[in-house]
């Protein structure tokens, strides 16, 4: 499991409807114009399905970038 793979999975999840070309590990999640709590739910479900890790609401709210989310997943794995 690598960071690039994780970014790739997020891109794949949202690429149909959103411009995800610029998404990288340092992308600030909350700065993305289209980001909402529903996108967060989708990411939580994706992380659970792909990595068998359940992110808590606090962890998701506090994560600033995709990289910081990935760091949380690694510590819980």
């Amino acid at each position, binding site marked *: 499991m690598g960071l690039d793979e994780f970014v790739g999975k997020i891109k794949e999840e949202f690429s149909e*409807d*959103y411009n995800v070309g610029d998404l990288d590990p340092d992308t600030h999640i909350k700065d993305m114009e*289209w980001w*909402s*709590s*529903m*996108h*967060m*739910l*989708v990411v*939580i*479900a994706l992380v*659970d*399905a792909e990595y068998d890790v*359940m992110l*808590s*609401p606090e962890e*998701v*709210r506090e994560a600033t970038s995709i990289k910081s989310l990935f760091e949380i997943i690694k510590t819980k794995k």
Partner: protein
Amino acid sequence: MAQLNVDNWKISGIASAVPSTVVENSEYKHLNSLEKKLLIKTTGIERKHIADKTTTTSDLCEVAANRLLDKLDWDKSEIDVLVFVSQSPDYYLPATAIILQNKLGLKSSCMAFDVGLGCSGYIYGLSIVASLVNSGNLRKALLLVGDVSSSTVSEKDKSTYPLFGDAGTATAIEWSEGCGGSFNLKSDGAGFETIIIRDGGIRNKVTPSSFDVKEISAGINRCDLDLELDGLEVFNFSVTKVPKLIEETLEETKSTSEDYDYFVMHQANLLMNETIRRKLKFSKEQTPYSLKDYGNTSSASIPLTICAQLNKEMEQKENKVLMCGFGVGLSWATLSIKCSPMVCLPIITV
């Protein structure tokens, strides 16, 4: 542990009624087209049935109960118990069950009372009625369960308004030697603010400020008399606690997911329910949904899903069913039951 095996009762019939007015989420004006697409994809809710301002939960339950009793050909004078489970009663007081006892023409020696629960309410209601029937002299009972949640959500709150539909259901239960079911019931009041209407009770009485509409965030505008739902907390609660409870239930009943014909969950939202289903290894064929056409119908969602998706199967053969309700409270519960063939009416539109 609130785990109880209740013998000598069976479900004889189920009916569900919904209002005729349909609201399409694709036409919800407080979301843009991409938000609507994501909403429908993640929740699975394309439309829901909404009551007009004069229709209450008890009105819908009354229709369902009368149709069910007609079909069962039950004599109303034989009904000893009426329990109404809802979070949208007719009045603050008296109990809606007592009003329904009179409207349905049941005898005055019929025990009637309300239970104030939401998404877990059907299972809790069944556990109470089944225990009463098993206790001895009470032979036939009606469990009326439903909610008119549309009256408690702000149309300008995109986090709640598109989710909830209205429905009222009736379940007929009777003494039956050798039948029964296994309940597991849980609660966690630490999460009471996860799904809440803040004002209108004794803790926070209605004041002029209760009606002040506040912008919580973009697309979320509501007052303290409107339903408030923390989606992330609900998701976290549901996908962590519910699978554990079901694993417990499977262990206690010495069964596996493959032993069940159907796994009927409270219809919260598709993303959440599918996460739970996958974790527990129930197949898609075992797991019916009513979300697409009816939305989250709160306490009514389990019987409504059975009527909408399984009515022929429930009428024609015996089925082993695992039911699970979870949500507001926080409260969650399961019932493992072998259902004899029963009367199960298709959805009634009022």
